[in-house]
């Protein structure tokens, strides 16, 4: 078989799949974003940029900014919680590492929606946490833990924490332990050794983990719906509403494209930053 034919056969299925289910829908979304909403929810094929003008309206733009802020907070919290977890697993005795990783991944075995509902049980006014606090006499009135930004951040961090832990674990486990010993030997305290050696050497994993948490967080609409209540809307909810409630497909497409654009810009920025640091260590 000629080499070119063999390549075509091997690449064909994957490329076809991508063309059908990624390129075509994205192109459709791109096209729709320049159309207008029809009177009865359909699409009027009149080319214009009205949707983009509308998207920068403070009402919508504010939601995008808020989504960015929440996703950033979620990413930061996940990093602060996830790094020590990954570090402890990676430096645990070998026979414990696999069981501990399994525990990190265990939540994935149940449905995301069900896991998010579980937080309602924990956080609501008559929920486990409030009852426990009242039983301990720490609070008189139940705290409003649910249906606000805090609940939203808790839910998203919980949902995506394994995506932070796994790349960090892989990176820390690969570090030659002698490198940390060398830092200690040369006079570094544990904390200084950590900041000057371990963190720089796991920088790429930190970046990867942050992307894995940030990207699904900013586009998520289930968690804001269930835990954020009606009050906390994120860009994902907005897009969802445009398509399924307002039946304004063109505007929904515009918002979706803007979200993709923002994420791409952030990814490039991050890649550029990591590469720059690699060159000037």
């Amino acid at each position, binding site marked *: 078989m000629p080499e070119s034919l063999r390549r075509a056969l091997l690449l064909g299925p994957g490329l076809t799949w991508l063309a059908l289910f990624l390129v075509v829908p994205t192109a459709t979304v791109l096209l729709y974003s320049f159309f207008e909403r029809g009177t009865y929810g359909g699409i009027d094929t009149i080319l214009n940029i009205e949707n983009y003008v509308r998207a920068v309206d403070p009402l919508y733009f504010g939601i995008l900014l808020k989504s960015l802020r929440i996703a950033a907070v979620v990413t930061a919290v996940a990093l602060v919680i996830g790094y020590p977890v990954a570090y402890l697993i990676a430096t645990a005795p070998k026979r414990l590492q696999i069981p501990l990783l399994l525990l990190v991944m265990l939540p994935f075995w149940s449905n995301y929606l069900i896991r998010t509902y579980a937080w309602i049980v924990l956080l609501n006014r008559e929920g486990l946490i409030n009852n426990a606090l009242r039983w301990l006499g720490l609070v008189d009135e139940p705290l409003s833990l649910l249906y606000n930004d805090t609940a939203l951040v808790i839910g998203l961090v919980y949902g995506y924490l394994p995506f932070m832990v796994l790349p960090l674990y892989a990176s820390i486990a690969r570090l030659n332990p*002698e*490198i940390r010993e060398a830092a200690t030997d040369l006079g*570094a305290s544990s904390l*200084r050794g950590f900041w000057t050696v371990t963190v720089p050497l796991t*920088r790429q994993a930190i970046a990867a983990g942050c992307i894995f948490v940030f990207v699904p967080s900013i586009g998520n609409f289930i968690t804001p719906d269930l835990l954020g209540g009606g009050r906390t809307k994120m860009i994902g909810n907005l897009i969802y509403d445009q398509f399924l409630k307002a039946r304004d497909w063109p505007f929904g497409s515009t918002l979706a494209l803007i979200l993709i654009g923002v994420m791409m810009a952030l990814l490039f920025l991050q890649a550029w930053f990591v590469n720059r640091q*690699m060159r000037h260590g």
Partner: protein
Amino acid sequence: MSAVIEMQGVSKRFGTAIALDAVSLTIRENEFYALLGPSGCGKTTLLRVLAGFETPDEGDVSLDGKDLLAIRPNRRPVNMMFQSYALFPHLNVFNNVAYGLRMDRVRGSELEARTRDALAMVQLDGLEGRRPNQLSGGQRQRVALARALVKRPRVLLLDEPLAALDKKLRGQMQMELKRLQHAVGITFIVVTHDQGEAMEMADRIALMRDGRNEQEGTPEELYERPASHFVADFIGDMNFFAGTRGADGVRLETGTILRGHGDAGAESPAWLAVRPEKLVIAQARPAHAEDNALEAEVVDISYSGQHLSVRLRVPEADALVLAKVDTADPNVAEIERGQTLWCCWPPSASRILPRESYSEVRENE
């Protein structure tokens, strides 16, 4: 010379495995000291105890008379060159070497000058900006050396420093390490499994076995006066004859007595050990009656420049013997395979060693 490091009864167990078994050592000022032994003998554990990465279960370690174990590893005036070199891959050569000084809050022109001095010392000037992955194995080793020396430690620990280098480079680095040690006047403790390396570099050697210090001494002492079969076998080549300790030597099973010096209880199992280069090969039984002499058949001859290695079978001792004969010896040309000759050596060239454990017998068979 005064002692820098003193170890008293240092023991360390990992689970049920005994890594160090009551080791006591004295390492002197300005000494090039080798911890030698097969893998698993505890030599690396000993080095890691000194660096502070392992805490002994028992025993005392002092440096300049002060309790070393009470000092945290990052505060000890001891630096280590790791077997993997453990260079910081994200830092260039300059910053790798400067790392230790920065941890001591050395700044500015002093940092610059001391780092450059250390790099010049190992002939790495001009490579300051390179990353470790842009260096050859030999260059990496020099960076590791400069990084460990830049803080002027009281003691430099080197874990198998030459193991990762190819043979030719290894020879160069052996001399280089000796030169450096004289130049900087720092006590070097090197861990190695290679007896040739230890013999060539070290002022004194501790040969370790199963977590114990089997014998300590200068290379000459270990070579000429080994205290046990293990030492005699580990250092250089050695021929062993099994027998029983008699009044004036070792009596083979056939009744022949081989004369020599050394300690072994009367009538107890013993080895008579003799170095290959001490054997003389003769066509006829020597006239000198004091000399040991055994009849032997030449099994194999191989030429290696300065000497011929002659392998002989000695029927009387049921042993294979190696003799190294100077190629300048006029008798050499006459040696042929299959020939029956006499193997002779003076009693002063042979050592009598106790023959105790089963494993020693097995090793020789």
